[in-house]
């Protein structure tokens, strides 16, 4: 490759808002449920039904807009986007084209060289999600489930301000954190509550005009996004190098094959015939509502981090990691509220939790254990009810199955063995059975002590109090020496 190329990337991010009910009817937004049970005449597009806007959706969209420095259209409207597809019961999606609720904002990200840059937000608009099609190849038919139909979404459209996969990930991370901190969404990529489409073009370094862009869909994880960007960048450069044009089209990323496939080109792009939805009145947002939502804004990462250092005496490193995910920060705060041992809670999250997340290939967002159980476990260790190695074993159970540590320790007989008489007996047996180690110890090989402790722990099923074992062993060994 003789020429240098620059990649230009803009994102369209869909976020499912965490409202209790749908955007235009009173149906539940809860995940799961038998097909077509969270539905009514409105979200199934029955003739004669009418949409009524859920005010909570406006509040959450507004909160995200304000937190990302957007200007607010205090008079905004909903438009109909007309297209035929069976997952869309009315055959139009209610969205916003002409007057979206938020526009012209941005978020600051850190670049690879340690600098900072702002990724512009072109607009944020509110819209409804579609239902789900299930293709039954056995019966040779397709079925539709409208449970997701009408779940509220916001679409955050960025400016083409990103230049690498790293910047895209940094932007998404920042956006996710802001939205999670606001409580506007849980932003889970795998479950689809956050979805990103990537608009990408390449141009020769120094060129002023943008190249022809493609839009990529079906990106279900940060890793897939990074791979897709690399793949698409390479594909476009290869085209240009071989003198062929990049075609403006929508492409579908296949993460398994690490390649994207053309879905539709600009030529067969649909004319959505947008027009203002006559069933909905314009949304008028008062100064007071903006003020109220601004006042209600939560503590964001920077403030939270400072507070963890000041209030809980955490090292900066801990505070940084814990506030890096809303879920971790929430668990931390809830557990501390129960056990009042911030540094201990932090240690469990920073060491064991991180280890298990890595082992299970999970994001912190997907942690399911209750902070109270972690707090209880810390209490058990503090009280000397379990020893450190048992605690780790119990924690893994908490992490995987959210067991109640008190009950689990009780049921599995994992309480620390503090019965000195019984321990004396066990230690004596271990010493009896390992004469070589005793000789070694007496010969000055202090390491032999560790072996004998280990054997004793094994004999007690790991439940013995290690301090007590050490003390008894030492007594026996020294005693025998003086005989």
């Amino acid at each position, binding site marked *: 490759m003789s020429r240098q190329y620059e990649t230009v990337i803009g994102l369209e991010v869909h976020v499912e808002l965490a409202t209790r009910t749908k955007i235009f009817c009173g149906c539940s937004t809860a995940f799961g449920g038998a097909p077509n049970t969270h539905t009514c005449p409105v979200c199934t597009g029955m003739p*004669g*039904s009418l*949409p009524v806007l859920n005010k909570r959706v406006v509040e959450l969209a507004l909160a995200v807009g304000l937190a990302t420095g957007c200007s607010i259209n205090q008079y905004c409207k909903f438009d109909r986007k007309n297209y*035929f597809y069976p997952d869309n019961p*009315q*055959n139009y999606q209610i969205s916003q084209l002409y007057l979206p609720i938020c526009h012209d904002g941005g978020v600051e990200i850190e670049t690879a060289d340690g600098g900072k840059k702002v990724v512009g937000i072109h607009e944020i608009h509110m819209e409804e999600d579609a239902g789900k099609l299930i293709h039954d190849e056995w019966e040779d038919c397709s079925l539709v489930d409208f449970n997701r139909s009408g779940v509220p979404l916001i679409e955050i459209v960025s400016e083409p301000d990103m230049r690498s996969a790293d910047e895209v990930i940094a932007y998404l991370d920042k956006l996710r954190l802001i939205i999670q901190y606001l409580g506007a969404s849980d932003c889970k990529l795998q479950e689809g509550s956050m979805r990103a489409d990537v608009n990408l073009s390449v141009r020769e370094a120094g060129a002023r005009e943008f190249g022809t862009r493609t839009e990529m869909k079906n990106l279900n994880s940060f890793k897939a996004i990074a791979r897709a960007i690399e793949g698409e960048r390479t594909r476009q450069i290869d085209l240009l190098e071989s003198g062929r044009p990049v075609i403006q089209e929508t492409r579908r990323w296949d993460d398994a094959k690490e390649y994207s496939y053309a879905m539709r080109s600009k030529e067969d792009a649909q004319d959505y*015939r947008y*027009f203002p939805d006559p069933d909905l009145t314009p949304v008028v947002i008062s100064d007071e509502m903006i003020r109220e939502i601004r006042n209600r804004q939560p503590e964001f990462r920077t403030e939270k981090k400072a507070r963890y250092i000041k209030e809980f005496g955490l090292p900066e490193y801990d505070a940084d990691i814990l506030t890096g995910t809303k879920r971790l920060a929430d668990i931390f705060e809830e557990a501390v509220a129960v056990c009042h041992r911030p540094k201990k809670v932090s240690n469990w999250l920073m060491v064991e939790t991180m280890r298990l997340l890595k082992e299970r290939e999970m994001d912190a967002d997907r942690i399911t254990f209750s902070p109270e159980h972690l707090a209880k476990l810390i209490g058990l260790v503090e009280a000397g009810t379990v020893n450190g190695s048992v605690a780790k074993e119990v924690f893994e159970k908490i992490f995987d199955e959210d067991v109640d540590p008190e009950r689990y320790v009780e049921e599995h007989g994992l309480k620390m063995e503090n019965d000195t008489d019984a321990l004396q007996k066990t230690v004596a047996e271990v010493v009896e059975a390992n004469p070589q180690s005793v000789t070694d110890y007496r010969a000055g090989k202090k390491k032999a002590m560790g072996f004998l402790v280990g054997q004793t722990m094994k004999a007690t099923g790991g439940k013995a109090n290690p301090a007590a074992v050490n003390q008894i062993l030492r007594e026996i060994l020294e005693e025998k020496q003086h005989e």
Partner: protein
Amino acid sequence: MELWQMTALELGRKIKDKEVTAVEAAKASLAQIRKVEGTVHAYVTVDEEGALLRAKQAQEKIEAGELAGPLAGVPVAVKDNICTKGMRTTCSSRMLENFVPTYSADAAERLTDAGAVILGKTNMDEFAMGSTTETSAFGVTRNPWNPEHVPGGSSGGSCAAVAAGECFLALGSDTGGSIRQPSSFCGVTGIKPTYGTVSRYGLIAYGSSLDQIGPVGRDVADCAALLEVLAAHDCRDSTSVARKDTDFTAALADDVKGMRIGIPADYLGEGLDAGVRRAVLEAAQVLKERGAVVEQFDLSLVEYAIPAYYVIASAEASSNLSRFDGVKYGYRCEDAEGLHHMYKKTRSEGFGPEVKRRIMLGSFVLSSGYYDAYYLKALRTKALIKKAFDEAFAKYDVILGPAAPYTAPRLGESLSDPIQMYLGDIYTISVNLAGLPGMTVPCGMDAKGLPIGLQLIGDCFKEKNILRAGYAFEQARGRAPLADVGRLTEAEKKEGEAR
């Protein structure tokens, strides 16, 4: 006087006074339906069994003292684009031939709550698109005054049913004149309320920003009583307005002294039938004699109303009707090859030609490159028309004119020339564009014995002004008679015998 010939309020009083039961009233209506329906064909569905059951239940409630309203026990009909739970609602389209709604429209619920007994669903132009009721997929409705003529449309079934005594009151819907024009052709009274007065929840949409449900009845008082039942804020319709002044029957005073009435000179010009013109001006004279101040004025912009209306209504319709796709309910074609073929074939077979024409027109005006030139321009025209009315209502309490340029055309005459048919809506359409209330009151007969309707238009939320004017006129001229369909059928019989 036979039972079926009474007004709704007269019947309601007799039921209240225990002189008649709701079941007897329903039976009287059903008997009249049996007698004339063969000639008129006002109904798509007559639910005889259900109606008698509902009448029995209403009677029980009346006797238990749970129902005391003026319409308790009164048999009514509902236009077939208003959803009725468990009762087929077709929009007179093959597309919804077997569609049974899972819920009732707010207006239908309010009717039932008031104790009115729904007899069935009335015929209409398919999806309310048309001015003659001839675009119905289930056969034409005939004008009860002369079965060789159309009843008007799109609420032709509701108006014909009232005129022929097949119900005491009916619900219609009006997007561009669909209550007022057939009321004029059938010699009955009909009101299109201010936009937002009656909930659209459950009304199968044609042009959402223009559609309003309204009453059709035998006189002004009946219509006012029904409107009082229908008008209420509904949180399920975002365009529904919370009004406090819905005691419409309070406006029924024979007093128009000092009322300022304007007649747009634009409404009396070219294209207006001489007989209609004479009847309308005579009606104005009657009101003047009773103390109203009547004068002509220039409303302006009248010629722009029709193109603006057909752009806006068709644009909204093209989107509103896209849900009829064969996937969820209604008609689905046989033997489709794949999804898009199924969509195409279902919609080609399920919709009639007038509906297809408007879907295509609407899709065109919304398409990229034409949106500004057609749709936005039509919206601007709509705003200007509203402004012209605002200026007029600064000077007048009521605007008076004809409801239609002519009396009911003969069957088959209109559909051969759709542009001519569209032009027939000239006096009614701007009322929808401006969101105003309008009412038709019968004001005479033409030389052929066909009814002529007087249109009274009020400013937004001023239904009481037009009710007062309409009531005063009715008091002066006497209530319009019902059509004697029996006489006509007798005449036809004789004609047949003679042959």
